[in-house]
């Protein structure tokens, strides 16, 4: 009896193996489509980071890629649809503005996998299984650059300049302020926002004006989370020979010597990892929260800025990082 069961089992196993083998052999290249946020490539920040991830994946794996830089809102949705209906396997939408469109389209194309970088998580919005909704814990990285600022300020005053006054940017502010206070409870933090519309992310003149005002009020280090508005912050830092902290990508080269560090979001790494997982059949939908623990956010310390920050401060910041990862420090976010 047992030998009958055994040969049946083995036979079925072998037959199953044969059919699976045939399917594998006929598969072609993985097709990956990517739709950029407004601004597109060349922003030296968020979009370029996504592009780096795509390029690295293309270099490392045998995949076919296409990308689109949309102009207005309607293009975003049609670009996503275009990729999905042309039989792409994996489609990226880069930026918080994709949230609603990509959720809807993911429901319309259940056989295609989607990824939204900076997904706007809100109650009542169900994330379908074929959508990876990526969200970064910007408050954690901001906390660390805040602690650097708090340890380094000579005037006891530092500044924060946000782009558009929305909850996503408040995460940067609130993390930064708590990081400053953790190491320097008496330190003053000046806060300003460039506006209440999308324009607030691309207004360098406004950025410069706000930064000059903060430097004038005694701040010696300013952290910005304001897209290309920040280029104005850097210009002010250069003019006044003060310090600024960059955001999203490493912005050292925008004002060498005046950029203390940058709080970076590893959009490149996320894009790369998701493509790799898709390649190996390990794509997972649902909400993904990426923080310090996953190297999803972090700060820069390298050969450029090691002359600006003392190693003692790095040791201290690494201790704080460990505490955040271990849950010993909790960063309070504002109520949504």
């Amino acid at each position, binding site marked *: 009896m047992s030998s009958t069961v055994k040969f*049946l089992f083995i036979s079925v196993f072998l037959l199953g193996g044969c059919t699976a083998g045939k399917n594998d052999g006929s598969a072609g290249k993985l097709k990956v489509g990517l739709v950029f946020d407004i601004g597109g490539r060349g922003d030296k920040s968020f979009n370029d980071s996504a592009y780096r991830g795509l390029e690295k994946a293309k270099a490392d794996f045998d995949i076919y890629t296409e990308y689109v830089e949309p102009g207005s809102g309607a293009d975003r949705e049609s670009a996503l649809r275009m990729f999905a209906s042309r039989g792409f396997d994996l489609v990226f939408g880069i930026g918080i503005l994709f949230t609603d469109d990509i959720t809807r389209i993911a429901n319309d194309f259940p056989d295609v996998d989607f990824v939204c970088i900076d997904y706007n998580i809100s109650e009542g919005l169900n994330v379908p299984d074929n959508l990876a909704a990526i969200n970064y814990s910007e408050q954690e990285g901001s906390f660390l650059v805040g602690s650097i600022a708090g340890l380094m300020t000579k005037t006891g005053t530092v500044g924060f300049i946000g782009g558009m006054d929305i909850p996503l940017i408040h995460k940067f502010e609130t993390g930064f302020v708590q990081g400053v206070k953790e190491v320097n409870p008496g330190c003053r933090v000046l806060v300003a926002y460039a506006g209440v519309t999308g324009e607030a992310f691309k207004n360098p003149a406004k950025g410069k004006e706000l930064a000059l005002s903060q430097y004038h009020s005694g701040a010696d280090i300013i952290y910005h989370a304001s897209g290309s508005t920040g280029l104005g912050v850097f210009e002010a830092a250069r003019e006044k020979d003060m310090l600024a902290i960059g955001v999203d990508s490493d912005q050292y080269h925008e004002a060498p010597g005046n950029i203390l560090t940058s709080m970076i979001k590893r959009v490149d790494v996320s894009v790369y990892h998701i493509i790799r997982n898709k390649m190996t059949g390990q794509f997972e939908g649902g909400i993904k929260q990426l923080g310090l623990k996953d190297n999803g956010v972090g700060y820069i*310390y390298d050969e450029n800025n090691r002359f600006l920050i003392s190693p003692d401060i790095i040791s201290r910041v690494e201790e704080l990082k460990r505490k955040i990862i271990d849950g010993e420090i909790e960063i309070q976010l504002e109520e949504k």
Partner: protein
Amino acid sequence: MKYLRRIAVPVFAAGLFLAAYGYYWNRYVVELDVVYTSDGHGHVFPSMMYKDGKKTAIGGMSALGNFLGRLKRDYLLADSGDIFQGTPEGILTEGRIVVELMDLLGYDVMAVGNHDFDMGRETLEELSGLAGFPMLGANIIDAGTGLNPGYIKDAFITELNGVKVGFTGILTQDMKFITMGENIEGLEFADPLETANESAARLRKKGAEIIILLSHQGAEKDMQLAEGLEGVDIVLGGHTHLKFDEPKKVRRVLICEPGCHFQYAGHLKIYYSIIERKIMSYSNRVVPLLASRYPGKKEIDEFISESFGELTARMNEVIGASDVLMLHRTYGEDSKNGELALGNWQTDMMRELTGCDFAFQNSGGIRAAIPDGDIRVRDVWELSPFGNTLVKMVLKGSQVRRLLEQSASAKQSRLQVSGLKMIYNSSLPEGRRVLNIIIKDEEAGLSEIEDEKEYTVVTNSFLAEGGDGYSVFSEGTEIEDTGLILRDEEIKYIKGNSPIHARIEGRMINVSLDEDW
């Protein structure tokens, strides 16, 4: 009814096919059992495995005996090297206890590993003479004769269930970096791929139907090797202590890795058709030899206590305690930094003993965890099995910087440090990764290392010779071997300073964000 009629023929045909297939399978396919181990490192007794704060006793040669005793059929038993050295039993008997137990367990064949040379070539030669099975190393060549040295064979054929199985063995070509020079003087290590293919061709000629390569060069290299292997069916690997629950398949070659310290027994079943004379399929399991499931086998335990009882009793003597469990490998965030509490403890002690400015120890030389609670002589022997001595020298600041640069790029063999603190970024280009080297002085406070200044340095005799590729040590001046044996000093130190304690304290900080990208 109509429906039934429609499917009756296909069902009948399928049934016929299955029945025929089953008949064929039962009658003409033989099952060949191969049990495989590697990197036993003298672990006669179970070792402790630490995971998620729990400790579990696992493995050992006696447990393996229990496992083998439960197999109902004949099997082949093979090992992929590094079997003699690593525990006091292995070292103090110069491998004799291991070879005697291997014979008792019925080993058919083994490959020679790098650590099998640790007690000198003469010892290995003696062990080979004692062993009732061949030791393989097809690419180990005597530079004088151009042949394998007499005590090492290139290949071996045996028979199981009427099928001729051929074995060959290869050893990593990294030998000159990872082994003390004197132990391999006059030996050369030929190209593993060429050697294995030649050896496989010879085995085929002699009638071997299945060819198994015992490889002691690490899982990753085994996978690369398999891309070019011709005639070899199966690689049973070792060296990197990895365990493959599912064997990997590269082209037609099956690659199996069984872990280390006899913690697991690899059990491969080969289904071989005696009509077609070819391998039909495999099944494989890697069985954890948990002490709770596989207690020691009685006759083996009796043999050990009769022949080596005094020795094992001496090794179980408690010499002190530790107030914390200190692991010999890094986990999670710590892997990125590379700092070990055990490394801090060792290097601080080395510096205290010699009064040097800095101490360095290779992470790969830290071989076992120190438990919290009682420490036995055995634990220290397993931690520091090599018998290395402490060597002092003078290095310039710039040379120390080069050492640490190299360490910042050496994932597996980073240096443990005392007397300084380093911050590095492993995602920067090689050679530019170290950002700060800071010296703490009781009086002067913190300062960066000075390139032109001379510092006194203590390290172990393996590194002093340029081991693990750290050739900067061989540039040192005023080199002095203190004759102090690290292991003996550790035993003394624990006796005098119990309970010992050490922590990870941020001596090595890697600020990279790109660990697995």
